[in-house]
């Protein structure tokens, strides 16, 4: 193993190379661009034996990736924000086809107005599409999760495409040390590609013609069955990856300071690092607070969430995205899993890359704690953690 200084985008590109991806097709979009640039460079230098289809759009990028994968080649793409939304139709087509594919999504805000900074609305918009969605906290994890994604996606219990999500700029463009295993080590760990069928003159397979309604229904049932099975596969892959490379993440969720915690913060992505810091600082002040970092949005880790979060004094969910007219998407899933067994509050924060510091998490938690202590059982789906420059003026406007 070699420690390299890499941005998460370059780490993801390295992982795709080490996975021996044969076809890459992607379209540039900030902040994903440096992934496709790096892959193009590695292919043109001959460091990576793959073909790149330099498509004219993201819709085409995923279509080309699916085409290559259906023909039997390991294929990879990457996108962000509007690119991901433009692909949305093909995401459904890919999962419906049950063809293993891996895609990196650098999570970014959606316009208008134009904003290229971190937000989870783009990836959260895909959670109903039948893709497995894993979320990294750091550069190393972005690398590890990309390698793991091929193994999860190509597992015969799963056979679903997978998104590896990493946050804009905070990960994508920030250099950090990444432990990169050798090609031999990766070859020993990652089996050759498996998939449920291949479309070729030899197999004569036709994918996607009309099915009767009952068959269609059962195909949807089977996608969900594969999602449920993927929970076990994710845990297994995490454990085997740990054995081979020395890093384990806890499977579907990572729990930090959770064992004796009265209150638990739930969130995903890079800002979990700030939340963990807040948890440490709160403990110094006598608050027993832990962090549950959701690593997989889909399949939704319902059982773990129930096991770890029920019977706490309170759960506070931080969403970096919102379903307008409802609440943060993570909140909705957590609340549905807990069905009122504990006090819960949803906080929407950090939209459009607004910085959320450990002290912001601390303030939200202490406010929640005092609320629970004052009123007993609390159910509060949506609280806005406003940016500093607006926090005071809005409060005045509301009270006026």
């Amino acid at each position, binding site marked *: 193993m070699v420690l390299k200084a890499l941005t998460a985008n370059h780490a993801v590109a390295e992982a795709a190379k080490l996975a021996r991806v044969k076809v890459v097709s992607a379209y540039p979009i900030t902040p994903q661009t440096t992934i496709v640039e790096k892959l193009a460079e590695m292919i043109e230098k001959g460091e990576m034996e793959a073909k790149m289809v330099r498509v004219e759009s993201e819709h085409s990028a995923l279509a080309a990736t699916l085409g290559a994968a259906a023909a*039997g080649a390991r294929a990879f793409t990457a996108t962000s924000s509007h690119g991901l939304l433009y692909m949305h139709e093909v995401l459904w087509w890919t999962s419906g*086809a049950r063809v293993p594919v891996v895609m990196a999504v650098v999570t970014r805000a959606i316009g208008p107005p134009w904003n290229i900074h971190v937000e989870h609305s783009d990836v959260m918009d895909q959670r109903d599409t039948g893709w497995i969605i894993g979320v990294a906290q750091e550069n190393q994890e972005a690398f590890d999760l990309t390698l793991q994604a091929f193994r999860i996606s190509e597992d015969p219990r*799963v*056979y679903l495409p997978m998104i590896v999500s990493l946050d804009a700029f905070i990960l994508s463009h920030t250099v950090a040390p990444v432990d990169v295993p050798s090609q031999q080590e990766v070859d020993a760990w990652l089996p050759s590609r498996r*998939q*449920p069928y291949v479309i070729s003159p030899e197999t004569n397979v036709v994918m996607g013609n009309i099915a009767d309604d009952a068959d269609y229904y059962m195909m949807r049932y089977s996608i969900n069955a*594969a999602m449920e099975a993927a929970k076990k596969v994710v845990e297994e892959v995490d454990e085997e990856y740990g054995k081979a490379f020395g890093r384990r993440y806890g499977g579907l969720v990572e729990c930090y300071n959770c064992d004796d915690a009265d209150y638990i913060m739930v969130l995903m992505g890079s800002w979990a690092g700030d939340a963990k810091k807040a948890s440490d600082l709160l403990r110094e002040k006598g608050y027993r607070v832990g962090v549950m970092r959701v690593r997989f949005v889909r399949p939704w880790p319902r059982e773990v969430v129930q096991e770890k979060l029920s019977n706490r004094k309170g759960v506070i969910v931080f969403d970096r995205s919102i379903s307008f007219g409802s609440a943060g998407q993570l909140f909705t899933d957590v609340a549905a899993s807990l069905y009122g067994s504990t006090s819960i509050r949803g906080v929407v924060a950090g939209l459009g890359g607004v910085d959320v510091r450990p002290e912001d998490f601390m303030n939200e938690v202490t406010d929640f704690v005092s609320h629970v202590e004052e009123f007993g059982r609390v159910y509060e789906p949506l609280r806005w953690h406003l940016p500093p420059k607006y926090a005071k003026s809005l409060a005045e406007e509301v009270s006026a």
Partner: protein
Amino acid sequence: MSGTAAVVEKPKTYWVAPISYPAPASSGKTGLWRTERPVIHLEKCVKCLYCWLYCPEDTILRREDDYVYVDYDYCKGCGICAAVCPTNAIDMVPEGGES
């Protein structure tokens, strides 16, 4: 360039495949759609094979001697064969009358 194609392995979870294979009758016995059937008069046939060439359904079949016959199980009765026949060797006869 070459690489290894994927190993095809059956899924290990409940699975209804979104796949098919080419086969006749994907829409049933389409001969039932027919309102007129082509009747070939071989004494007028010059084996030009135009009917065989233009038939959209692959339901004009060639014998070893290249005279042709009709697969009535699937012939939809469009009448293209009769229209392209240079010797008028094919008549379109209404279905439902005497055979």
